[in-house]
């Protein structure tokens, strides 16, 4: 039984530790910031690519060959940059 009591006190200490550690939010700092770096870089490229593809599809639907692909390329670039700014702002708010 002494063993069990010992375990109980240890559990209490561990629980208190957990409480205090959950208060500091940046305990997963490094790996998640590297993760968001990966997210930012591919997001920027993917937005431009998707914008261009949408432009290409709409072009072949409406037969307006070069125009929509150009417009949507720029729209995609704008979307990518806006998205990066938005994510960066969220990252700053977290800190």
């Amino acid at each position, binding site marked *: 039984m002494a063993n069990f009591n010992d375990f109980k006190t240890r559990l209490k200490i561990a629980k208190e530790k957990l409480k205090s550690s959950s208060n500091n939010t940046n305990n997963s700092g490094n790996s998640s910031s590297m993760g968001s770096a990966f*997210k930012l870089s591919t997001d920027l490229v993917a937005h431009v*690519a998707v914008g261009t593809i949408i432009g290409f599809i709409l072009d072949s639907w409406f037969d307006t060959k070069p125009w929509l692909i150009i417009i949507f390329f720029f*729209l995609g670039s704008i979307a990518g940059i806006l998205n990066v700014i938005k994510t960066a702002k969220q990252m700053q708010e977290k800190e």
Partner: protein
Amino acid sequence: MATNPMHQFQVYKLGPEIKIAGIDLSFTNASLFMLLSAATICGLLFLGTKEKKIIPGKFQLISEIFYNFIAKMISDTAGSKAKPYFPFIFSLFMFVLFCNMLGMLPYSFTVTSHIIVTLLMAIFIFVAVTVIGFLKHGFGYLKLFVPSGVPAVLLPLITVIEIISYLSRPVSLSVRLFANMMAGHTMLKVFGGFVISLGVLGGWLPLSFSVALTGLEILVAFLQAYVFAILTCIYLNDALNLHH
């Protein structure tokens, strides 16, 4: 021998060709490694949950760490409403993680270095999140594309941009995982080739690079699984709690 750095990504058939209704369903090395990673996950979790002790053994400890890690990630990013989706995100994370990690073994095959695998997972997530969003909010889910506080003149432009940004989700999700895995494994092979071609005299520098890159690749393998799962949580959060 396989001096071509892209040779490692080749998919080949194991066993006889199986064709059902014109679709090639042969068992390939990719299917073998998918099965292997699924079997490893099942084995690990089976061993971990077999004996439920207060003081956990090795396998139970690992399983509990994985469980806590995903549970915390979901509650941090998507809130308590996302709790029912825990099994899906847990299996997704474990599958991607084990595919990446099994790919790090010598002579193995990395399933996630093929865009068709990652794109399929990403499209499934994209469709599922869209369906969940429409089920929870009805046509109010379309408000996601119309942010509040935008002047009426800019509204059409912003809406188009938001739609592009929504549609690019599966692309960026799948390309990130695929590109990271493929680039890393190609780089490892290229440096390994340098070791052979430079021989005993000059091969030590690329060899040390190779060792360092292997460490980096293991980090990337974990990180990409983590990013894949956390982005699924973020998209789920958008669908469940609609506040832009």
